[in-house]
């Protein structure tokens, strides 16, 4: 069955969609209007909107350098059949964000039926800058560049010592081009040497791991010489590392869920069932 993608609010850059649509179809539709969901790991694009919003990624994207939720509103069916609908808004202070009861909950608290997703302008041009040096220094450069309001849109690492780190920036506007120039200046200040951008490499990208910023040095150091890892959905605090299954075997999985909130999560599930 082909699910219809609903309307696009071009002023707010919001798209209304049933949750059974694949994220890739949403992205395709957005691109026809010059919009995008921004950099996302391949696994997200393979999923349905519902799987993305209810899964561990919880509909996350990067906005202003911050990992945020790209759902502006959701409609959820609870166990008793009742339907909860939140209001799309840029921000709200009408109490806690109850959408987050359901986002990332693996469907255990309700089934997300529909969503309004935020989009951003599709960038037409980009610039890539590459530097080589010790993994530790490259990680420090990467971390510094991600602590600006707009982090790089992507990164590619070729393992070794020296390793090569290539950062990808949008280049549609003067501000974005200045941003890339500042990153190159910073690399030189770190004492890194200019390198050729690695270029396209045929590789399966079927291994993914969320990597917090304080583990980027470990990640860069663990990549075997000549192996490639891509970083996407880069925020100040975290990025998603993507590589082949073969390379992934050498890399640590970094983010563990906290168990401290499990009793509260359990009680919340029970309270919702009594709803």
């Amino acid at each position: 069955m082909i699910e219809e993608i609903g309307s696009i609010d071009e002023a707010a850059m919001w798209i209304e969609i049933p949750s059974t649509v694949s994220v890739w179809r949403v992205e395709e539709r957005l691109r026809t209007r010059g919009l995008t969901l921004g950099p996302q790991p391949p696994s997200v694009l393979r999923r349905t909107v519902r799987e993305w919003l209810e899964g561990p990624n919880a509909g996350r994207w990067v906005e202003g350098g911050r990992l945020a939720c790209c759902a502006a509103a959701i409609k959820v069916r609870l166990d008793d059949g009742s339907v909860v609908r939140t209001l799309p808004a840029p921000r709200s202070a009408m109490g806690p964000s109850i959408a987050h009861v359901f986002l990332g909950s693996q469907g255990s608290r309700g089934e997300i039926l529909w969503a309004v997703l935020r989009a951003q302008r599709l960038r037409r041009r980009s610039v890539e800058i590459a530097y080589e040096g010790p993994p530790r220094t490259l990680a420090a450069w990467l971390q510094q560049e991600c602590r600006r309001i707009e982090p790089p849109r992507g990164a590619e690492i070729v393992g070794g010592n020296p390793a090569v780190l290539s950062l990808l920036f949008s280049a549609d506007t003067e501000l974005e081009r200045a941003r890339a120039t500042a990153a190159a200046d910073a690399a030189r200040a770190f004492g890194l040497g200019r390198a050729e951008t690695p270029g396209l490499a045929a590789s399966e990208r079927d291994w993914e791991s969320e990597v917090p910023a304080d583990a980027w040095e470990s990640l860069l150091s663990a990549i075997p010489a000549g192996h490639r890892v891509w970083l996407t959905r880069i925020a100040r605090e975290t990025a998603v590392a993507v590589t082949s299954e073969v390379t992934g075997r050498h890399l640590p999985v970094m983010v563990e869920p906290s168990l401290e909130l499990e009793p509260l999560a359990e009680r919340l599930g029970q309270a919702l069932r009594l709803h």
Partner: protein
Amino acid sequence: MSRFPQLQPFGELPAPSGALLSDLARILGPDAISVSPQDRLEASRDMWPRAILWRRKGLYPPAPQAVLYPSHAEDAARIFRWASERGIPVVPVGGRSGVLGGVVALEAGALAVDTRRLADLDPPDRERMEATVGAGVLGADFESMLEREGFTLGHAPASIGGSTVGGWIATRSAGQNSSRYGKIEDMVVELECVLGTGEIVHPARPTPGTDWVELFCGSEGSLGLVTRATFRIWPRPAVSRFRAWRFPRIENALDAMREILQSGARPSVLRLYDPIDTLLSFPPWGEGEGAPRRPPGLRELWPRTPRPVPLRRLWNFALWDPRALNGLARLRRSAVLVLGHEGEAWEVEAEARAAAEVCARSEGKDLGPAPGERWMRHRWESARHFPTVFEMGGWVDTLELAIGWGGVARLYHAVRKAVAPHAFCMAHFSHAYPDGCSIYFTFLGAAEDPDRGLGQHEATWAAALAAARDEGATLSHHHGVGLQKAAWLEQELGDEGMGVLRALRRACDPAGILNPGKFET
């Protein structure tokens, strides 16, 4: 239609029972408890304008039995466990700068938990660029510490001198630089939070699955007490630059704001004044590089001291039926936008140039840097004039809504139209994002007769919120819900959404002791 507290005439407060006090002394120690009438009265109120009007009638919301001062999360945990066993309501209180009655108890018999001894203020973690701070620390003290260390949080609400970090989180506060740095919920890395059960939890980001931080932010002390928070911080900007623009109509300016943000620029200040606010703050005879008037302040609307009685009467007379005053908007349609850029020199220059191009394309006239620089110097003033309005026999209140860009202008006109018969109304647009914007309305009314003033206040809110709901706006952007907006929560969340909120409360606070009556209709 709102649920308001049981008001009491001013008089002697009933003494709490000896058994209660000895229990509390055992739990916290005698130094962490106050039963003084002054402390109890202070803890019973915030800056809610409606409560100020009640006071004019000699009526007060119920004072707590005692005020408790936990010094760390474990103190709060012991209080909550004890109160849960006995079903005693607990109302968290911080700087009391809220404007919606969030700390006002609905009934007598509650305990107030004052957060001001949760005062950890350690130097920031330079390596991680994060800072951890106690919930009771005043915003201004936190930012001053960061400034000394070469950082900023990027959060500058008008209440910064009197609001606490915990209050910011409780209400999902927004500061004047929100367009660049986000709202407070965007800045939190980790919370320390004591649930109604007495459990101490540490929701943190990023984590796979549920983002619990989003659930505790904005919970107004009804899910738990935030005792400490860790925030992302930024290096203090090397350069900052202002520029102001006058647009022929508000719609031109809104288009420019949207275009600037959607292009990827993040100005630190993006503040548009509606025609009335512009007329009062940036009169045409004051334009130019060197001669801007001061930024909006309610002093502009009110006679200066000494306030002669006839003038005061004249103003109150005019405000009983504010339609004529609201007609001022028809005299002039132009609107002034103040832009601020900060960061490193390269980004400030590139961003300012790009923003200038957008403003010029939207028919903006460049007013130069002076209006913005002056705004920066005087930006805390307008809130300081609110008490003057009350002293003069009037009332003033504010309402912050938010909506996607497609609805901003329509929402502005709809609320102004709805409110025009009830209150003098002006607005600015000061928290903007790539997908939408907040509108901050200021309402002014007469209240020499407090009962009439209360009626006018109620009518103003009802008209404004009904218009906002009909336009599809969220009814709060950064003040929270409190008691003033509680009745409207269901309009926004629906019956099913209220059920989810109740389930969340039951999970965090099964005994229902935390700030009862809030988030209920």
